[in-house]
């Protein structure tokens, strides 16, 4: 039987002890934590905005939703271009450590995983969930 491998490139990022992944094509930059600013709003997950190259980019702190309230301090921002959207769709995700670029084959989701997990990566000694940010944020809005 021939298996056709179809590796894609992902950005792995840590949230506490666990790592997650986004498609590398969706990530535009890894940024140092600028001073986040905030103003009144009612959207869950969003903690404020940061200024990146004269653009106002919303900050979505997904850590509590993914690893619970005890996630360590976030050190960097991963800035994502959400697929099919213009620059108004960019979102910054605070992460707790350095990120890594990796090529791997995305495996289908097995078992009971939340709908925002759109694939799994089988790495050396860990299984990493590939996230769909749109679905993650929509799930939080609904809950």
């Amino acid at each position, binding site marked *: 039987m021939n298996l056709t491998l179809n590796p894609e490139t992902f950005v792995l990022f840590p949230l506490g002890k666990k790592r997650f992944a986004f498609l590398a094509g969706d990530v535009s930059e890894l940024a140092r934590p600028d001073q986040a*600013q905030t103003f*009144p709003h*009612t*959207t869950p997950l*969003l903690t404020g905005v940061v200024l990146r190259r004269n653009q106002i980019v*919303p900050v979505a702190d997904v850590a509590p939703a993914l690893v619970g309230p005890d996630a360590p301090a976030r050190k960097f921002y991963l800035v994502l271009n959400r697929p099919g959207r213009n620059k*108004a769709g960019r979102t910054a995700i605070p992460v707790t450590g350095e990120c890594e670029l990796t090529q791997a084959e995305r495996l289908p989701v097995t078992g009971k995983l939340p709908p925002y997990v759109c694939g799994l990566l089988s790495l050396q000694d860990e299984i990493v969930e590939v996230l769909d940010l749109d679905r993650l944020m929509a799930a939080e809005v609904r809950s």
Partner: protein
Amino acid sequence: MKISSTRHSARPTRKRHTVILFSAGGFTFAIEAKAVDEIRETAGLATFATRLSKVEHSLIRQGRRYFVVSAARHFRIKETPTSRLMLLAGVPVGVLVDGIDRMQEIHSLQALPEAFRGEERNWYRGLTVIRGHVVPLVRPEAFLSKAEITLLNASVCTSERAAAVTA
């Protein structure tokens, strides 16, 4: 064939706006200067019982009743001592705020990022950056909708009729 997108562009609009910066609950907001008729002290407010929790006072000015909205309650933020009342132009609405900072000209207005999906989409026309600080430009018509003004006017008529009957 040209297909136009209905999505908001992230590119800031370059139109010039003169805004008034005001504060409420520790936050700074901007409102277009032309949307404000008068800024005054809070003297003369009368208690006004209503089902809308953000409206607790009214003001009679030049024979016209203004419904006074608490900015802090409107934006669902901490209530702090208020000192100024902004009377909006063209509508019988006053907005109770902590203070007025200054007038300012802004040259750039960015659409609210799409990630914001809550009530803020109604509250704000967009965001601007003033001296490195992101400031939302409020939509004056969001403080009280036409329907809410109609309901408040109706409740005034009802209470005035009841008062007349009692008298």
